[in-house]
């Protein structure tokens, strides 16, 4: 695919991306799994799976379920741990010319700091804070639903890294703007949203939850209207760039997020459906801009007229 990088490039808190289309954490592995299907050099950035200090086995039982225009997952942060990631996996991704953003999850505030410190290595372009994962009992979501805790996590991470820090927000809150303001205030360099909505499915034959973890995170097209709304509310309220995601399947969806105020977008569940999504959407955005004589994608960010 021959993308027009001049037209499509964005700079998110110092992370230079060739296109505004990133891949969502947990939905694109470490990028290399998709190397056969998509030109990784043409992806805006790869956000890797939530990484923890120690390796994690994740949740037992069934981990995904399909729901109308969406899916539930309760992977439970299975990952090889930060050491294995830095030693063996990062070098593989770094063979490609694409920024690598590491999504991190801690059980305690201190763990977030330690993770950030360990990730001060070449080849990591930024840190995304998963303070919003609904699938782990300890920690995780707790940080993501209270502005003060979220701010504390951001502060300690900022103290431990010079890399750009992206706070990823949970949509499972009453006031998303308060969360955004808190992490901005605490020094976050960008905000990404939304993580999954918390959902549940029940097998009416066995009278048991479909998911091993009982509840899980809802993603896919079903959640797009909630995501667009939150991106719009947050982008109006903060000065730092917003990365929008939630149900993006097509270039039209991506444009909706850009107009709502996202400076970049991430493709999640769509990767499972069509592994070429990230670059096809970049091309689609380019076509959209070109048709309207727009030379740089930044020119449409936040341009929805609501009055």
């Amino acid at each position, binding site marked *: 695919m021959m993308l027009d990088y001049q037209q499509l490039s964005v700079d998110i808190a110092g992370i230079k991306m060739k296109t505004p289309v990133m891949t969502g954490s947990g939905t694109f*592995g470490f990028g290399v799994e998709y190397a*056969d299907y998509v030109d990784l050099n043409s992806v805006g950035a790869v956000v890797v799976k939530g990484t923890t200090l120690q390796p994690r086995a994740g949740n037992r039982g069934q*981990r995904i379920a399909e729901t109308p225009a969406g899916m539930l997952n309760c992977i439970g942060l299975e990952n090889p741990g930060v050491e294995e990631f830095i030693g063996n996996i990062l070098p593989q991704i770094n063979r490609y010319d694409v920024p690598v953003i590491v999504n991190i999850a801690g059980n305690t505030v201190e763990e977030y700091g330690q993770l950030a410190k360990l990730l001060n290595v070449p080849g990591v372009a930024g840190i995304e804070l998963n303070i919003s994962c609904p699938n782990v009992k300890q920690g995780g979501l707790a940080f993501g639903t209270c502005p003060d805790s979220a701010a504390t996590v951001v502060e300690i991470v900022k103290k431990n890294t010079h890399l750009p820090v992206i706070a990823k927000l949970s949509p499972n809150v009453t006031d998303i703007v308060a969360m955004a303001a808190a992490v901005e205030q605490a020094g976050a360099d960008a905000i990404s949203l939304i993580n999954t909505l918390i959902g549940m499915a029940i097998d009416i034959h066995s009278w048991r939850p479909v998911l091993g973890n009982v509840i899980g995170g809802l993603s896919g097209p079903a959640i797009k209207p909630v995501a667009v709304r939150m991106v719009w509310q947050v982008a109006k309220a903060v000065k730092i760039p917003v990365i929008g995601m939630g149900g993006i399947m097509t270039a039209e969806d991506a444009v909706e997020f850009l107009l709502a105020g996202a400076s970049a977008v991430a493709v999640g569940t769509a990767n499972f459906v069509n592994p070429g999504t990230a670059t096809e959407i970049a091309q689609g955005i380019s076509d959209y801009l070109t048709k309207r004589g727009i030379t740089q994608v930044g020119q449409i960010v936040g341009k929805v007229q609501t009055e």
Partner: protein
Amino acid sequence: MPKQHVQAKVVQHIAYNEDVRAITLFAPSLVRDSQPGQFIHVRVTEQYHPLLRRPISICDIDHEQQTMTLVYRIIGEGTRLLAAVEPGGLLDCMGPLGNGFILQGNRPLLVGGGMGVAPLVYLARMLCPQPVEVLLGARSKQEMFWPELFAAVCKNIHITTDDGSLGTRGNTIDVLPQLIQTGNYDMIYTCGPNPMMRGVVEQAQKYDIPCQISLEKHMACGVGACLSCTCGASDGKRRKVCTDGPVFWAGEVTEW
């Protein structure tokens, strides 16, 4: 070999019984590299519901025609939509995915139950001209459409049905010990419902015969990226059924 994401042409789509269909695809790039035991990740609709692809085993391949056949049971919305695809149409396929069976041993026994028989057909073909023995279990005669698929690749087919309407009444585990005692097998390949495979593995271990099993887990990506399909392994690490499997050595994996 790079994995493929192709629109394969449907050349035939037939019904074996009320629920089971065989779809044959003209797909040179998929056919070229496919190993027995691998699977295809099929997109059943361009709509958003159901959203995810469906994993289906490669049942057989005709290298001359460059066609591949998938045999599947209609159990829900996804397979129902798949069943509506017409010959001449295109099917969005990713594959061949996963690690297939390791072809090894001189006297292999293939044990399949239910739709788990599917990958054994191509396995038998690739084992030829080695003499292959197959033990197949089904609920009833109507479900036992497999023998004609094995016809060209294997003469030695043992059949059990739960209701006795064809072959021996009972299930594969009932007749397995006797087969093993007389068959002199040095490799068992098995695919089917987990309880059946557990029985097979137990017998294989008892008689000290190496055994390969093929697992099913709910899958989102099919390429090792989402971790929806992992299971524990006896080395304490995790295995992805979609890329490390679906075929494993018995004893390699736990949690199935």
